[in-house]
């Protein structure tokens, strides 16, 4: 894995890419980010503010912003929308009860002017758990099938064992607005 190897997938034309990670609390945003950066994921605490990872090489730059998803922090999300190239929305696929809740939250994001037309990668995380919903059911829960004004991709993944994360990020970097 590693963020540097991903950076090479970046198209020549865009020198800088800004990726925004959002999703409900406990979805696994920070775990995915740490997994990407080859850092230890065993001691992760709920994010009270935000994390940012920047990688730079040969004039290319990637910024990944990971914002806390707790209810009290969600109103601050909008401070981070500006000049986002890719929105990465992370879901806890094993939390059936909250799929629709996260769907409502997600659909409000899609209405934001500053995120208009921004491609969306949905990480259907925690696929290692036996109760995880398949990607297609999550697509329905999030109302992805009603989207016409932007590209979207759903990637089943697990921050725990690393499955699917590289593939998802590759799609994100190959895709432009």
């Amino acid at each position, binding site marked *: 894995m590693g963020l540097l190897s991903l950076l090479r997938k970046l198209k020549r034309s865009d020198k800088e890419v800004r990726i925004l990670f959002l999703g409900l*609390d*406990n979805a696994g945003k920070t775990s995915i980010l740490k997994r990407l950066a080859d850092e230890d994921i065993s001691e992760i605490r*709920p994010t*009270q*503010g*935000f994390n940012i990872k920047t990688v730079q090489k040969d004039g290319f730059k990637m910024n990944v*912003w990971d914002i806390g998803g*707790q*209810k*009290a*922090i969600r109103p*601050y999300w909008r*401070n*981070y929308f*500006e000049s986002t190239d890719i929105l990465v929305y992370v879901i806890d696929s094993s939390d059936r*009860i909250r799929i*629709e*809740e996260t*769907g*409502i939250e997600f*659909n409000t994001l*899609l*209405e934001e002017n500053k995120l*208009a037309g921004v491609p969306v990668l*949905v990480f259907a995380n925690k696929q290692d758990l036996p109760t995880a919903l*398949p*990607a*297609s059911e999550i*697509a*329905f829960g999030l*109302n*992805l*099938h*009603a*989207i*016409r*004004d932007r*590209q*979207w*991709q*759903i*990637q089943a993944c697990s921050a725990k064992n690393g499955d699917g994360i590289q*593939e998802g990020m*590759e*799609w994100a970097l*190959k895709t432009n607005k």
Partner: protein
Amino acid sequence: MVYCKCCGCITCFRCFESDKKKSDGIVFLTIGINNTGKTTFLHRMMNDKVEEPTPTWGFTTETVKFKKRNITLYDVGGSPSIRGIWVNYYAETYGIIFFIDVSDEECITQSKEILETILKDEKLKDKPILIFANKVDKIEKFEYMETYNKLNIESLISQGITSVNKILLYPCSSLLINKERDPRIDSGLEWLITRVNDDRSYIENKVKNDTKKQNREFILEQEEKQKRVEEYKKLRAQQEVDQKQQEQLVSNTTNNEEIPLISKDKSKSRSVRSVKVYPEEILPSPE
């Protein structure tokens, strides 16, 4: 959600109409089993050089120029567990571009059944379908009639599921040929556009009515979800209140060191962790 882009409401379809104008009205949906070359084809239409796209697990749309026309293409994933989303795009499409991989026998067999199922969908009734027999570069010789028969096209026509002038099997390659798009792709598309134009007013009307109906369904679905979530939230709030009362009860009746019935150590539990509201300084705006 299909919220309107011009005024933000959910019942007006003006922006849908204006999007249509931008693309001369024509929308084509590309479908077919995974790995048949749909996204590679989309890149040919965008005139870029991509030949190895990532497998699609979702939806991509592009409005491209083709023979002085603007055409909107919808590309969706073809893997078995994502195919369920296809039906959500039938209403808006003027015709179908169906992909098969001619170098893969299993793919042809499976495509036969899929073809019959999709053509029976009311929303695609009497709309033209172009079947691209893709990857012909991979095989020695493309046997047209053999593939035609394997797909059971004759029987689809005789059963009235489609008609002889609404379906065309056409060979092509989505890869670059001498750095250019395969001219057979253009010929196939020309056929499809001509067929649409033959029936333009019927198709336009059908698209308009079916799309309106579908948008209403999407909105209803969303409203129902919203209701369920609100009920669930209420329930959860009530449960938290109940739990607190019980804890009170427990702590009032137990002596200090006895094992409580309900653990009071909530610091490890994520669901009930206390949430402080953080001042804005801790959450600075991005640079």
